[in-house]
């Protein structure tokens, strides 16, 4: 249906449609590498611009689009509320930086002289890379925007298929092994998610999130908790929450640097976002599950960081810190208060930028030092002083050194934890502090060994780092630092996002006005003509 006028609604489908369309185009034009690159960059810039527009539009209230003119609860609704718009924008900026970085790096594997050289450089076969990368972007945007549980599943599958291809690019033995593990675990989680959807549909007769929020409180408590736990299990695997995190440090480090960076920044956050959305919108007031989540968050933090301390490969070390810091976000969600959710949202934004930046810089370290093993690296501070700074800043940010954004996010979480005041919340507060210290220990150890110690072996003479790889990494590091500068407005925005997600009412009214009164499954334009009151969601 053509919108009557161009409004904020026009922007909503763009972050999904533009990358998807561009993906088709780049696939068709795979012979023209330069055209491909231009299309990819333009598409992601456009999608990010649309997301920024949505951030402002959504501040006035959720912007809803009924796809295909079928309104909720029958049709699929795309909902851009503050939280979704914020996530879209941050992920858009990140995807763009990583794409530019990969352009600087992209020597097609066939052109590299030996397999080894290709692997050290982490070079990527460009022809497949661009379409897949754009599909990944579309899948992530779809997951953020959707207001329908089954469409969320579709978004997950889109990004899963794309990520499996990206992870096994080039098909080396190590990547095939890592890809197999990743794919099998991801598939198991998807099947669980689908089973949860089937059961929820059987129990309530709907899969529209807004209508679920209305109907779920009416069903039996036991059934509801079972459904909630099944969904959390599926999302927990995606978000790499302990004890479902074992697959992550195994599979991420083998991929090319830009791919690892995107995965670390985005894929787990999509899982966290889903947990946040379902916990606040569909299953509010679930104290028992919140207790479980608190315990899980504590275990994720502590065990994740202990894993990081044991590693001596930078990429694996960072993968473990990634797992560990997912715990902070779950902590915020599990507190089930407005301030806790706001802190979690702020932390997600901070963590996306920082973790991605770190992985990009490690890609540069690998390029310059020829390895990511801390036993073989050394003396890089003298060889590449800029690189040392680029690693040091996000590393401190990750550990939460003031005044960087990691510190602000952690302060928010700790304040809310102390305010909560239960013994479990106090345990989480202590766990957070210990985890931060251990993070500091792990990343500073990595920095010392890679940059400060004398090189244990001859550092291979590579060409100097291509400037086109350095500046996107530097841009992302700067973006992370600038989060501190805009922390006031950003935290305010996160607060308001949390307020809307927590009250639920705004969201439900926007997607599904009048609750069960309007259930014809047709858009407003259509319902004006005929008002027939059979409930479309009931099978």
């Amino acid at each position, binding site marked *: 249906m053509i919108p009557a006028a161009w409004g904020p609604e026009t922007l909503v489908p763009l972050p999904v449609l533009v990358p998807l369309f561009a993906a088709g185009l780049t696939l068709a034009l795979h012979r023209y590498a330069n055209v491909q690159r231009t299309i990819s960059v333009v598409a992601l810039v456009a999608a990010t611009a649309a997301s920024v527009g949505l951030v402002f539009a959504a501040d006035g209230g959720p912007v809803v689009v009924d796809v295909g003119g079928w309104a909720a609860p029958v049709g699929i609704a795309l909902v851009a509320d503050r939280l979704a718009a914020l996530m879209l924008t941050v992920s858009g900026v990140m995807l763009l930086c990583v794409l530019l970085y990969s352009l600087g790096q992209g020597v097609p594997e066939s052109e590299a002289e030996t*397999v080894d050289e290709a692997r050290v450089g982490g070079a990527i076969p460009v022809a497949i890379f661009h379409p897949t990368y754009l599909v990944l972007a579309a899948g992530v945007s779809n997951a953020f925007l959707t207001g329908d549980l089954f469409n969320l599943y579709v978004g997950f599958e889109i990004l899963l298929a794309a990520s499996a291809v990206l992870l096994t690019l080039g098909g080396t033995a190590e990547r095939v092994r890592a890809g*197999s593990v990743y794919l*099998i675990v991801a*598939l198991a989680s998807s*099947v669980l998610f*689908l089973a949860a959807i*089937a059961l929820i549909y059987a129990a309530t007769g709907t899969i529209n999130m807004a209508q679920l929020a209305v109907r779920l409180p009416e069903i039996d408590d036991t059934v509801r908790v079972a459904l909630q736990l099944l969904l959390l299990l599926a999302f927990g695997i995606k978000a790499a929450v302990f004890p479902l995190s074992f697959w992550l440090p195994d599979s991420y480090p083998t991929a090319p640097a830009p791919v690892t960076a995107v995965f670390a920044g985005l894929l787990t956050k999509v899982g966290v976002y889903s947990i946040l959305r379902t916990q606040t919108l569909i299953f509010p007031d679930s104290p028992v599950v919140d207790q479980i989540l608190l315990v899980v968050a504590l275990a994720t933090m502590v065990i994740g960081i202990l894993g990081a301390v044991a590693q001596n490969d930078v990429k694996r070390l960072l993968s473990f810190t990634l797992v560990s810091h997912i715990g902070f976000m779950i902590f915020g969600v599990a507190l089930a208060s407005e301030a806790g959710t706001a802190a979690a949202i702020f932390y997600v934004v901070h963590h996306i930028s920082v973790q991605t930046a770190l992985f990009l810089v490690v890609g540069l370290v690998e390029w310059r030092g020829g390895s990511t093993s801390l036993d073989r690296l050394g003396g890089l501070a003298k060889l590449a002083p800029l690189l040392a700074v680029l690693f040091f800043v996000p590393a401190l940010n990750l550990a939460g050194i003031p005044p960087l954004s990691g510190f602000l996010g952690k302060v928010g979480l700790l304040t809310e934890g102390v305010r909560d005041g239960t013994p479990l919340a106090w345990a989480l507060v202590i766990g957070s502090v210990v985890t931060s210290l251990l993070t500091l220990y792990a990343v500073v150890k990595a920095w010392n060994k890679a940059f400060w110690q004398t090189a244990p072996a001859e550092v291979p003479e590579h060409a100097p780092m291509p400037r086109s790889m350095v500046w996107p990494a530097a841009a992302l590091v700067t973006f992370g630092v600038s989060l501190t500068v805009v922390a006031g407005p950003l935290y305010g925005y996160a607060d308001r996002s949390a307020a809307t997600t927590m009250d639920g009412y705004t969201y439900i009214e926007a997607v599904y006005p009048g609750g069960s009164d309007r259930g014809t499954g047709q858009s407003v334009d259509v319902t004006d003509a005929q008002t027939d009151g059979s409930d479309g969601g009931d099978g």
Partner: protein
Amino acid sequence: MIVLENTPSAVLVLAVGVLCGAGVYLLLERPLTRVLLGFILLSNGVNLMLLVAGGRAGASPIVGNAGDEPMSDPLAQAMTLTAIVITLGLSAFILALAYRSWQLHGHDEVADDVEDRRVARQAALNAPAYEDADAAETGESLDEEAATVHDEVAGDDAGTEAGR
């Protein structure tokens, strides 16, 4: 308002159970082809569950076709169809992975992570030297086992490079 009979048929529920059980069993195997079979069975089980969730079958859900009879739930069918397509695509990808794995190693078993083994070996070195339970059974300690795996994978890599 017509209230539909929503109690699922026992045969279908049983079929879902059997498909999911067999699927999970196969999913836990090492070779990728078995994992693939497991994934297909499991997905079919869950798809069937989606259909069951839609309630009893009725007339075809086309307006004007059914008359007064209750119609089947089209939403469940739409979701199942989508899920089937997704399963097909991902199955194709697993097949490709299995084939590539067979090209590289001559089998399609998912190998252990080398780095995991190395960390385990370090931990074994640091641990106090009481008896190694693995060694008692096979005569081979974890260290030796890890070293073998390491050599195997390193050998695989060397093989690929020579192959190119």
